[in-house]
């Protein structure tokens, strides 16, 4: 095993690029690419990878919610995934959307899942193979999960409001200027509709990017603990909610806290600032 991984709370939750390159044709593994760049998979992907698009495949198209158990089972069946299949997620933007897709799969209890450390950027930087040929796997008979287990992994607005009022731990993973309220969207992105700038009262700022190295891999456990345990003061049994603007950057932090550092109670507030910042009669704080 990669020596860096061994120090993490859940070492087997990551694979590195060399491991994946050596296991492209290993039975029982399905590689899943999930990106922000909508055409990146079509431009070229890791051989054998299937494409899961966060909006088309994971979001319900008529409610602001995720797909339900039936649609999740159908998604898995289309890609030949069974409950025994080990999933390896990767993608662009330092694995934002890979972590997001991974997180949605956890809502349905598919725990045989891993993240490719460094994601697509590292794979490309190492000149590992990409292909445009799309594999069609035989449909599987993935059973419909009994429910979507939001409780363990996901926080809704009302829960976050109560969390805030109770003075529990909130981690704002957006950029510093988004946190302070100076801007309402991250640099390089369009405004996505929020009316106010600032952060949830009591939330501490820890931009997601601090958890990533320049090559998009996760930082070492020691480096991560320096941020989350030492600077933010998070304790193992704290009840923690992470948020960003729509829940993708906070999926990255959720993954770091839960699997790399072993925090027991971490949820992702996917409504995030787009919901909180617009909600009538909801308090905010501004400033650093």
């Amino acid at each position, binding site marked *: 095993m990669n020596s860096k991984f061994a120090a993490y709370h859940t070492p087997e939750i990551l694979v590195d690029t060399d491991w994946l390159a050596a296991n492209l044709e290993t039975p029982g593994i399905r590689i899943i690419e999930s990106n*922000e*760049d*909508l*055409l*990146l998979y*079509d*431009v070229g992907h890791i051989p054998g990878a299937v494409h899961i698009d966060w*909006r*088309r495949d994971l979001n319900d198209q008529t409610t602001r919610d995720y797909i339900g158990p039936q649609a999740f089972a159908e998604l898995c069946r289309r890609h030949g995934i069974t409950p025994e299949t080990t999933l390896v997620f990767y993608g662009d933007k330092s694995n934002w959307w890979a972590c997001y897709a991974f997180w949605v799969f956890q809502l349905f209890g598919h725990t045989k899942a891993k993240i490719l450390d460094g994601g697509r950027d590292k794979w490309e930087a190492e000149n590992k193979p990409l292909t445009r040929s799309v594999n069609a796997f035989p449909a599987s008979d993935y059973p419909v999960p009994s429910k979507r287990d939001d409780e363990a992994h996901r926080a809704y607005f009302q829960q976050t409001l109560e969390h805030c009022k109770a003075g529990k731990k909130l981690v704002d993973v957006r950029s510093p200027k988004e946190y302070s309220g100076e801007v309402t969207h991250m*640099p*390089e*992105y*369009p405004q*996505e*509709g929020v009316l106010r700038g600032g952060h949830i009262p009591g939330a501490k700022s820890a931009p997601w990017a601090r958890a990533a190295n320049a090559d998009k891999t996760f930082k070492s456990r020691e480096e991560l603990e320096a941020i989350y345990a030492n600077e933010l003061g998070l304790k193992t049994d704290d009840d923690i909610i992470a948020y960003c603007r729509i829940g993708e950057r906070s999926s990255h932090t959720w993954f770091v806290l839960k699997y790399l550092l072993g925090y027991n109670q971490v949820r992702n507030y996917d409504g995030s600032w787009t919901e909180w910042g617009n909600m009538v009669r909801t308090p905010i704080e501004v400033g650093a």
Partner: protein
Amino acid sequence: MPYPTALNEIIELFEFLPEAARRETLINYADAAAACGRKEGVAYNLEDVRKDEECTDTVGVFVRVDDEDRVHFAIELGPKVQTLTKAMTAILCRGLNGSTLIEVMAVPADFVPRIIGAELVRLRSQTVYYVLGRMKTAVKMFTDRRRAELP
């Protein structure tokens, strides 16, 4: 206001493509974006190279205006620019090169969804409008400078 003829032809091509072919054609255009860069030995009348908040990487826009007052663009994209932005760069270079300055300034942005289609139009893909904005800005800068230099 009608689109320049070359751009109109591209728009009409895309409008009749099924989704899979549309994606493939967009990727082909994205691949062609690398050829839209500056040409050696060509003197450009205006160079505007910068990175701003709407784009993920540095984008350089180079403008040459010929003797007939028609504009020719070269555009250089950084490596992190998204595929749709690359595709739109190649489409706009092909569709607008040879147009007059006034024609470029008058091009409405409403053709973008007709090219990329409903499936790919998303809030987070709004940077497809970015290159057109930069081209128009460059043309306006050129026009303003020329006006200022007039006796």
